[in-house]
């Protein structure tokens, strides 16, 4: 069995095309395990340097060393897409992985949220991120490690604060408030307005619009655009982090669908690919069942849900019930939120053995009865708003104070005060004016948290 897995790629691709998958070309590359670990930590093959990645990297190395996690592949959407395969993968692993990658590539080419982000630039995110990294290296040379790190501390701590409903290349707010409509729209006024002559004194002065005109949740963009004394290279760092977040969001918000879709397709391609040697097929199927296994071997239950298994189960059910065309439409239109709400039925949840639990004071967990709504909500709860508390800019005071407000009502409780103060310290170092955040304390009483005076 000296056959290289690459030899099987064209055949797998032919089969995938026949079954209706549609993807942009993918460049496959085998890389050392250490590099796979880095991709997992940074999220991108080449990304800006920051000490926080170093801490995560060591943590991952330890985990890997202890055999907790193993990465087979990472794929980056784009045209062409990039797929990185762990060099330690065996032949059967790589057959499975190739099929899996084709599923991802189909997903990212056709899912609307992915498409929207790719149209705005993330089709070349691998190259863009590398160029951000290079720019930041140059900044370090020009301005020093500490100065650049200060900006990155701030920008990366806010990396979830983007607004996907706005364009990546976003214009400043209109400078003036929209002109008030004429009071009465009658013939007399129309005639009056058409008369020659200077407008009455005062009517020419347009009112300046407040900044921000509405609560602004794209903190990265707002700070980069409106910080009173930010250096232009600092603004560029904020915008670089923001661009990468625009790429990360669809990956994050469709994780269950996307991994499920790729798992569905690798299983199906393997099943229907008669050209795969029998021993490799068996190994690959075993590998598949490891990937979509809901609960660790030897355990009876788990306190979390394997997204591969959840997505895989839902897609199998959808294809069986509604056919492949409907599945393709869902893959194009949904994200995890709508996907679970629409297709995680009571029956599937029961079949999968999903259950609600509540934490107890002694650290144990008690299984509680819950309807399907509460199961869905429990699965999605941590994913809202990019997994971050909802914080928006509400005002810039005349002394330049940046006023942030936390939506404690929606989030259900206030912010952790110590961490918030540290983040505000980061922000203040680039905003260079006072920074304050409004949230609530443990007793739901409104509180204001200020950045430290020295920061």
């Amino acid at each position, binding site marked *: 069995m000296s056959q290289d897995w690459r030899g099987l790629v064209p055949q797998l691709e032919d089969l995938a095309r026949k079954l209706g998958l549609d993807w942009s070309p993918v460049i496959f590359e085998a890389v*050392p395990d250490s590099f796979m670990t880095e991709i997992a930590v940074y999220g991108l093959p080449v990304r800006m340097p920051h000490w926080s990645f170093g801490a995560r990297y060591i*943590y*991952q190395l330890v985990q890997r060393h202890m055999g907790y996690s193993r990465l087979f592949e990472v794929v980056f959407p784009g045209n062409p897409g990039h797929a990185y395969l762990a060099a330690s993968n065996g032949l059967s692993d790589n057959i499975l992985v190739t099929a899996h990658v084709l599923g991802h590539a189909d997903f990212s080419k056709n899912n609307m949220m992915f498409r929207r982000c790719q149209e705005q630039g993330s089709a070349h995110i691998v190259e863009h991120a590398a160029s951000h990294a290079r720019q930041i290296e140059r900044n370090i040379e020009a301005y020093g490690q500490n100065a650049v790190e200060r900006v990155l501390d701030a920008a990366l701590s806010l990396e*979830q604060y983007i607004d996907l409903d706005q364009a990546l290349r976003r214009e400043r707010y209109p400078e003036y408030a929209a002109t008030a409509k004429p009071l009465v729209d009658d013939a007399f006024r129309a005639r009056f307005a058409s008369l020659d002559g200077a407008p009455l004194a005062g009517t020419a002065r347009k009112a300046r619009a407040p900044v921000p005109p509405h609560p602004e949740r794209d903190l990265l963009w707002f700070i980069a655009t409106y910080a009173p004394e930010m250096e232009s290279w600092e603004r560029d760092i904020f915008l670089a982090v923001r661009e990468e977040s625009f790429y990360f969001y669809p990956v994050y918000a469709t994780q269950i669908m996307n991994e499920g879709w790729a798992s569905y397709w690798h299983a199906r391609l393997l099943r229907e690919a008669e050209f795969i040697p029998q021993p490799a097929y068996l190994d690959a199927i075993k590998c598949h069942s490891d990937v979509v296994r809901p609960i660790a071997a030897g355990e009876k239950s788990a306190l979390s849900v394997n997204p591969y298994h959840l997505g895989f189960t839902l897609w199998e059910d959808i294809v069986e019930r509604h056919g492949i065309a409907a599945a393709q439409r869902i893959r194009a239109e949904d994200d995890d939120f709508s996907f679970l709400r629409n297709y995680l039925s009571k029956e599937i949840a029961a079949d999968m053995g999903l259950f609600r639990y509540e*934490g107890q004071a002694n650290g144990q967990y008690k299984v509680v009865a819950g309807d399907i709504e509460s199961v869905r909500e429990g699965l999605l709860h941590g994913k809202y708003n990019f997994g971050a508390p909802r914080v928006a800019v509400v005002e810039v005071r005349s002394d330049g104070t940046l006023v942030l407000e936390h939506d404690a009502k929606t989030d259900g409780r206030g912010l*952790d005060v110590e961490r918030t103060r540290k983040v505000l310290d980061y922000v203040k170092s680039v905003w260079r004016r006072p920074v304050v955040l409004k949230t609530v304390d443990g007793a739901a009483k409104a509180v204001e948290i200020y950045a430290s005076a020295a920061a």
Partner: protein
Amino acid sequence: MSSHEQDRPAINGWYELFSRGARDWLRHSDKIRDAVREHLPQIIAGSDVINHGSRSVQVPVRMLEHYRFRLRPDAEPSGVGQGSAKPGDVLGEPNPSGGAGQKGPGGRGRGGPELMLEFKVDDVIDWLWEDLKLPNLQPKVGPSDETQWKREGWDRRGARSRLDRRRSLRESLKRRASDPGSHAFTDEDLRYRQLARRRQPSVNAVVFFLLDVSGSMTERDRQLSKTFFFWVAAGLRREYQSLDIVFVAHTTDAWEFNEADFFKVTGTGGTVASVGLAKVADIIEARYASNAPNIYLFYASDGDNASDDAAAARGELTRVAGRARYSGYVEITAGSPRITMTETSRIFQDCVGKAGAGGRFVIAGPDDVATAVRHFFTAESRCAQEAST
């Protein structure tokens, strides 16, 4: 899983050249070192360098957290799991400490894994002794100023051993930038480090460490005193070249020790401070009467002295303090400082002010050791002030 070497695709060698993760990890370590430096007292107190004679200190540290906005801990955490469980089942191990707010998936609030950082003793001395010096130090009265060779500037000629390769390469690069295609190195490029003779005022000093090892000093008290003496000795040796340290311990009797034995000494029995002070005074007279160096005394005790020794101790202390530039007293107490002044403390307060400069400091726990070192070796103004009170 079948893995055959020949099945594996060749790896692009580029990946082995550089690891972003490793670089950012080094940066994280640097930052952690800076952060840990601010916890110097704990490093110093927690070290077992004295006992094991190692040249490094191990300190457990948390990984640094890059802060983000986070909700305060959920009062009623909940989640979704999977498996064979019915409503009413209880999962997981009970947490003995029962810490509210620590529960919930994701280990909220735990600062990640701990790691051990190793610090060189020399580095710790650097941080501890930044801006510290012997109080009231006076240049030696008398002739011989010491001279010292110091590095200073560069020259085009010099001994081979002092060739500065980095500097020479820079000169070569400069030349080749203006004249591309010329030789890689010429004699003109070579730069040698210059040495210059600098006169340094000689500061002869002798420091006495006097340690009470009587039965009332517990193992902990002795350990704290020795930790103090260890860092003082290490720092003084680094700062001053011509310096003697004399190690004396006493119970009802007094002995001079060499350094290694001093840090191991234990004892039993009563406390007669005057005996220890007398030993110091005798050594001063026997060895240092003629060349008049700067004399320092640091005495560590728990403050309990034999009740009939007060007068004698005052006498001996006055003798020492009269000759010394500074006499310091370190009192080791258990827990919170005492309200009433101990016998020994009063003796120091009374005698030192009159006879010469000096000061007192109370060490109540390991974290005070660093503060004590800083207290005694910070500023001369403070000594003067204390001497007058």
